[in-house]
């Protein structure tokens, strides 16, 4: 309804798609097998990488932006007995071939809308991958060291961070990085972050984030947004804004997203892009725990069919379903059995289709 087209990506993919340096998915997390030519293939461990591959190969000549959505499962080999499922349902969107404030706002607003319509209460945190990249880019350190810094900031491990920074000379940058895990909160964060700007590029980014934040503050999201400039996500492919959503009832992010302008280039022609994915399993579990979900379908009706009126009954049912009602055909010959079935599965309305059509409420005591 907002111009998004559904995309389905193959359930099995070449291993190489997910092994690109800098954007790869940990080898041990993928389910692998071989095809009949002996090439290594994996069960789809992620949706964004295959979409990026497809888009860079096949969507170059389409009018931009291309808006896509997906709802499909991904497979990850997680440690045993941790209560984490190896098959996870995900939904998400990608906006391909668009850059700047409007595309970023669209993605964030859509993410927020998704959560408002399903779980209601949540916090959305917004960061920017550029801040950390620019800071670290100024330091003469090895790739390994850089990764150590990233993980300590990611885990907000202040103690270890101090240790890692001890031998680095550039005091201004060191001070900024030291501050990074604590740079989260409301609008006041921007002011604080400005003091640690290493260059004009970063200053522009902060200004941009501030604009974005101001726009979002005008919406109902105002009290739901947290800015976290220390947000450095595991996925290395983000190049601009990154965002995650959290809710009281779930111990991890229920939604993750961000801008990844260089990813498509790794598969061929480059194109800016932004997207997010939602943990559908988590949302479903939350809604169900709150007693929502199926029971929200208000009135269920069981349709008992008199002998010889089967076709008529289905015609009546088509009409009801067309009007948005929930109805279920009874397979029983005797109306008593239909009533008993209805009481067991929790249906409280009975329709009998014969020469005439009658409808009645079933009491709870009718067993």
């Amino acid at each position, binding site marked *: 309804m907002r111009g998004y087209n559904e995309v389905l990506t193959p359930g099995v993919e070449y291993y190489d798609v997910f092994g690109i340096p800098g954007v790869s998915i940990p080898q041990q997390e993928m389910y692998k097998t071989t095809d009949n030519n002996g090439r290594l293939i994996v069960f789809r461990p992620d949706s964004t990488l295959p979409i990026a591959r497809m888009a860079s190969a096949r969507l170059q000549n389409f009018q931009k932006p291309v808006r896509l959505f997906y709802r499909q499962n991904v497979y990850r080999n997680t440690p045993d007995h941790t209560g984490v499922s190896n098959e996870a349902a995900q939904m998400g969107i990608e906006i391909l071939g668009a850059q700047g404030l409007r595309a970023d706002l669209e993605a964030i607003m859509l993410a927020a809308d998704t959560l408002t319509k399903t779980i209601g209460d949540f916090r959305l945190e917004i960061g920017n991958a550029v801040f950390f990249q620019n800071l670290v880019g100024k330091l003469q350190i090895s790739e390994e060291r850089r990764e150590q810094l990233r993980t300590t900031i990611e*885990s907000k491990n*202040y103690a270890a961070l101090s240790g890692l920074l001890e031998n680095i000379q550039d005091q201004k940058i060191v001070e900024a990085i030291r501050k990074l895990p604590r740079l989260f909160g409301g609008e006041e964060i921007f002011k604080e972050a400005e003091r640690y700007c290493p260059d004009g590029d970063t200053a522009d980014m902060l200004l941009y984030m501030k604009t974005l934040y101001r726009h979002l503050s005008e919406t109902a999201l105002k009290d739901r947004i*947290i800015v976290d400039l220390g947000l450095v996500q595991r996925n290395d492919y983000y190049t601009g804004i990154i965002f*995650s959503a959290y809710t*009281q009832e779930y111990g991890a992010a229920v939604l993750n997203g961000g801008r990844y302008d260089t990813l498509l280039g790794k598969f061929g022609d480059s194109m800016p892009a932004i997207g997010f994915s939602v943990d559908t399993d988590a949302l479903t579990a939350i809604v169900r725990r709150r007693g929502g979900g199926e029971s929200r379908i208000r009135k269920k009706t069981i349709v008992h069919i008199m002998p010889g009126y089967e076709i008529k009954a289905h015609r009546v049912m088509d009409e009801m379903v067309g009007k948005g009602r929930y109805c279920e055909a009874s397979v029983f010959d005797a109306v008593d059995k239909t009533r008993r079935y209805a009481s067991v599965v929790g249906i409280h309305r009975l329709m009998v289709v014969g020469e005439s059509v009658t409808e009645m409420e079933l009491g709870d005591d009718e067993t």
Partner: protein
Amino acid sequence: MKPLRIALTKGRLEKKTVELFEEIGLDCSILKDKGRRLILPVGNGEMEAVLAKAADVITYIERGVCDMGVVGKDTIMENGSRFYEILDLKFGKCKFALAAPRDMDFYAGYHSKKIASKYPGVAKRFFESKAMDVEIIKIEGSVELAPLLGLADGIVDIVETGSTLRENGLAVIEDITDISARLIVNSASLKLRKPEIEALAGKLEAAIVNKEKEIKK
């Protein structure tokens, strides 16, 4: 607002945590005299504690059923860290070390060494960082026994004073890393309850700094 739920590692770390909590003025009377209760209120209802084995503390935090936890760095290193590790509590101090029989040159010879450890993950990463090819054997307890029996060339284990090692003819060959108790926080909890958690962490940190000053005097 729900109370902040904290998981404490049973035993020594639990006692030290209670001491620290009392220092910042939290009422821990129920926590000290727990009876049969499993979820124990702390302070004036702003917090509640549960007690668990170290590795379970990590599970509770990762899965978000507890907001915070107190656990040793050794357990964190072995079990991974999909949570925030925000404060070094500076107690429960010891270190991971590589130890081997005193009279043996551990690095000598071309054969790949056998290493016994309760912490195979830590051992593996240590030798990987040295680009050394070793064979790791997981042992559940009394790791010092392994080299004495000839099962392993060396061990990777927690060393506090080193007296157990000495008594068994072993010596530390190399320190791997220092260990102490850490305050860990579930990632969603830190985002959702930042002011409360930061306030608590701030108070704890101040108390720890004070304590260290006193010790130095």
